[in-house]
């Protein structure tokens, strides 16, 4: 392996050195095998086209890097610029309001509390389902599956990430929801005393609730959690594993004493990246969740809307900047939320030294 940091920073050959006293007397060229006369280095070395090319190319590359940095700032800034007029015109409280009425630009009354409830509950529910399964898959693929099949198996799991979310949405709404209805009914009937399983604010029979949405979301974030955990688990030092094996540890004991401690930070940040994805998922939730005027009660059998699904559902009809600004304000909150979650995940992974 070449050291990437060395590769990363090969200084430009065109970088000027410090100027010294010129000892540039051209010396008579000795006879050459080829007909060409030996040129003086100095003559060949004037600020040539080559150096021009180097400067331009370097400028382009560096500019592209700087563009990436500026882009994130620009996203926040432009969303803010569009959101401010609407926030000022808002008659309700943006943070604590539970209704989102933004259709009439002269009568804006929107708040994000309701959206936050649904967004957080559906994302957490998805995470609770996906985390253990993702951990199991990552362990299976890196520690248990025979080398030969581990790769194709991993590819299968990655395929889940290639399925567009709209297709997951359709599947969730039309195929999965009716199929899991008996489970939902069972939970509601027997555990209905617990707020998660109490009667929801939309009819249970349609399955257009957080329960269905969370399961679909769990499937969607599974490949993210698995892929990154796998990468980290794979990097468990061979020596540690062999040391544990040499002590007579069983496979599971090896995993528990070496792989899990080594990969814990990576697994946690993988899960947070999954959470980030869940918070921002749009179309699948828009298709699955039934809109309802009723308030969110905390039940998994509630309908409602998340930040993303509400924006997607209403945005197409908008025709004025003030209404759009209200939704953009909600989008800004979502942006900040996912930024924080993703940044935290990246920091955890960077700290742990196991970069994914």
């Amino acid at each position: 392996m070449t050291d990437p940091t060395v590769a990363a920073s090969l200084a430009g050959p065109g970088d000027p050195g410090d100027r010294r006293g010129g000892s540039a007397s051209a010396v008579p060229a000795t006879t050459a095998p080829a007909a060409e006369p030996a040129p003086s280095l100095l003559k060949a070395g004037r600020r040539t086209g080559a150096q021009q090319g180097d400067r331009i190319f370097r400028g382009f590359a560096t500019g592209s890097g700087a563009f990436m940095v500026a882009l994130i700032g620009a996203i926040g800034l432009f969303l803010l610029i569009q959101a401010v007029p609407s926030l000022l015109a808002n008659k309700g409280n943006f943070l604590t309001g539970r209704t989102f009425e933004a259709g009439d630009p002269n009568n804006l009354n929107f708040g994000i509390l309701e959206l936050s409830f649904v967004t957080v509950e559906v994302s957490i529910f998805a995470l609770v389902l996906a985390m253990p399964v993702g951990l199991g898959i990552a362990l299976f693929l890196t520690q248990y599956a025979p080398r030969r099949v581990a790769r194709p198996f991993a590819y299968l799991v990655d395929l889940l990430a290639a399925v567009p979310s709209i297709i997951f949405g359709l599947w969730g709404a039309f195929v999965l929801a009716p199929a899991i209805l008996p489970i939902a009914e069972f939970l509601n009937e027997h555990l209905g005393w617990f707020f998660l399983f109490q009667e929801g604010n939309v009819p249970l029979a349609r399955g257009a609730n957080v329960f269905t949405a969370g399961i679909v979301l769990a499937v969607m974030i599974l490949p993210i959690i698995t892929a990154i955990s796998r990468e980290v688990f794979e990097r468990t030092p061979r020596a540690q594993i062999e040391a544990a094996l040499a002590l007579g540890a069983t496979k599971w004991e090896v995993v528990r004493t070496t792989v899990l401690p080594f990969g814990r930070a990576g697994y946690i940040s993988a899960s947070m990246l999954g959470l980030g994805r869940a918070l921002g998922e749009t179309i699948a939730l828009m298709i699955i969740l039934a809109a309802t005027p009723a308030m969110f009660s905390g039940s998994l059998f509630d309908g409602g809307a998340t930040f993303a699904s509400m924006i997607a559902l209403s945005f197409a009809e908008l025709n004025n900047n003030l209404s759009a600004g209200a939704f953009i304000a909600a989008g800004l909150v979502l942006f900040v939320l996912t930024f924080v979650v993703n940044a935290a995940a990246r920091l955890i992974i960077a700290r742990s030294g196991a970069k994914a």
Partner: protein
Amino acid sequence: MAKRLDLKDVDIYYGKFHAVDGVTLAVPPRSVTAFIGPSGCGKSTVLRTLNRMHEVIPGARVEGEVLLDGEDIYNSAVDPVAVRRTIGMVFQRPNPFPTMSIRDNVVAGLKLQGRRNKAELDETAERALRAANLWNEVKDRLSKPGGGLSGGQQQRLCIARAVAVQPAVLLMDEPCSALDPISTLAIEDLIAELKKDYTIVIVTHNMQQAARVSDQTAFFNLRATGEPGHLVELDDTPKMFSNPTQQATEDYISGRFG
């Protein structure tokens, strides 16, 4: 076109690390100069300062003067790219460009410098491959990838690539260390022929090789680990191997350490 090289009190650094201390030596044209010494003493480092390859490593810098026919290659008005065009280099591991055919590898330097004339390039390719004693082995497969050749052939391909740009000086960093004995002999024969046209500096850890191919030999050493490397002595090869001036050289050559 061969030129002479003079190093005057050259100090070489990797960031804060002082790798080589105060080297002064002269390399006459049309001769082979061998650098020998224990590993880590700075042979490659010195070699790479001779065509300003040293400075591609971040933080690396050079003090002192390196003169090519009297002209300081570190003069700020000199483009390092021009220096490397004039002073070619062959590396320890053969490194043909994997995306290019054998012919394109040989003329890569010219093509990348903007030459387009096909007839001229073909002619150069043949001349360089003949000079590298590779022509007969590859003339029927010039359009095949260079990566398909054997290690020794690849190294000769790299030599052909280096001579195709008609440098004045050819630097070689342990060019045979990754090769089998037969390929090594082929390269040694080649060096003897190239000497007629080029100034050659070769790093080798193989003392028999230094004795066989070089006209003069420079022995580098470390005073202690962590100390910078330095030039112990430089002399005609027969003298170095029979009757060196320095005790350290004698010890190293007779295999008493290193």
